């Protein structure tokens, strides 16, 4: 017994090192698996407040650009509204319970954004208090950004599409061929669409949108255009390089989408998966 105690005392630095190293490896491995990074994430009070203060100083420098983006979005929405058939428009206002109004949009400010690592996250200024929950979608007026990964009272962290763990259901705009949007870490401008069937009419310049299969995003949110494509080594599917509409390096304001029917759809799909 005496010897064991002596051994521990003599090697205490090494033992502390081993213990802490094991702990950090545990955190690292946990952060590589989906929805497991519970302890170490930037949606807590301390980091949220620090980023909030820094953002409060920094946001004035990009006001001009933000205004321009808002103006552009307004122009687009106005052109949709005024080109719509007046009857459908009026019907929407009279009938208070619209059939397709099961997506709820909320706005949020981005406090922190990263795009140079292989696992990128954003931190936004809305949390559980604003009814934001895990697995809500995040978009901007130009295209998709990511999915809510962790929430606290006042802040949430967002799994960016520029993350090797991100996998988003997407499809070609002109046909219904679906695939998965992933990221190969090479450039913040491009993401990759994989598992597109080789029968799909893929052409450079075509638009990629979100597919209707996920319960997170509504169908038809813009993602990007096809920049180049090649056949997978297996020979059955295309790997498509997608140029994102969103400039992921410059994101100020985002919309968080809640699908009010998500749980219903999931409970319907569950028995099939088992």
């Amino acid at each position: 017994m005496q010897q064991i105690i002596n051994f521990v005392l003599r090697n205490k630095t090494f033992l502390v090192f081993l213990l802490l190293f094991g702990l950090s490896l545990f955190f690292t491995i946990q952060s590589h698996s989906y929805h497991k990074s519970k302890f170490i994430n930037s949606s807590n009070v301390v980091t949220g407040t620090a980023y909030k203060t820094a953002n409060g100083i920094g946001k004035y420098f990009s006001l001009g650009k933000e205004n321009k983006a808002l103006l552009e979005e307004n122009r687009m929405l106005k052109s949709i509204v005024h080109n719509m058939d007046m009857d459908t428009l009026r019907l929407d206002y009279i009938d208070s319970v619209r059939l397709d109004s099961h997506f709820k949009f909320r706005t949020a400010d981005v406090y922190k954004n990263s795009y140079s690592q292989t696992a990128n996250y954003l931190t936004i200024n809305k949390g559980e208090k604003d009814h934001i929950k895990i697995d809500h979608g995040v978009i901007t007026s130009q295209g998709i950004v990511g999915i809510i990964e962790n929430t606290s009272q006042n802040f949430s962290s967002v799994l960016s599409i520029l993350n090797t763990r991100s996998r988003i259901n997407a499809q070609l705009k002109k046909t219904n061929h679906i695939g998965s949007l992933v990221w190969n870490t090479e450039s913040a401008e491009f993401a990759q669409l994989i598992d597109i069937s080789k029968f799909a009419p893929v052409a450079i310049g075509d638009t990629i949108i979100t597919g209707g299969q996920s319960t997170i995003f509504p169908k038809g949110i813009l993602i990007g255009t096809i920049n180049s494509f090649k056949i997978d080594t297996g020979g059955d599917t295309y790997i498509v390089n997608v140029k994102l509409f969103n400039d992921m390096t410059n994101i100020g304001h985002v919309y968080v989408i809640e699908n009010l029917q998500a749980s219903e759809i999931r409970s319907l799909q569950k028995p099939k998966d088992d």
Partner: protein
Amino acid sequence: MTKLTLNMTARFVVLVLVQVLIFNHIDFMGYINPYVYVLFVLLYPANNNRTLFIFLAFLLGLCVDVFSDSGGVHAAACLTIAYIRPVFLKFSFGTVYDYQSIKFDQIDFGNKLTYFSALVFIHHLIMFSLEIFNISKIILILEKTLFSGIFTILLCLIITILFSPKRK
């Protein structure tokens, strides 16, 4: 002693904040960021309690990890360089130095450069390996280590020169 503790606490907090609020967002050429917070580990007094030191290094890395959502990669890298630091102190400053009493503001530029480079490159290699976590991307790991490492070493040297106490 209390002055030293206060000094170290201030350095810890300032380096973490500067790292996460400024240096994490430089993204030079798209992906090159300096990791200046390792200065805390590099310049920690050599004659102090070693167990406390490696624990502080772990805590430093973990703080940066929490801010940048990276799991435990900074913590692991910081912890390792803190643990193996005595070897590199001996290697860079020679056995003629009694490495228990090095004053970091009174050492040669050449020695400082070797010491900084060795530890910074080890730190970056461990950090990027764990972050990318994929042996088939070894080229990307080495590339990031090299470029970010050079950036970090340059900034560390500049900061130590700027903030060193006046000699004359």
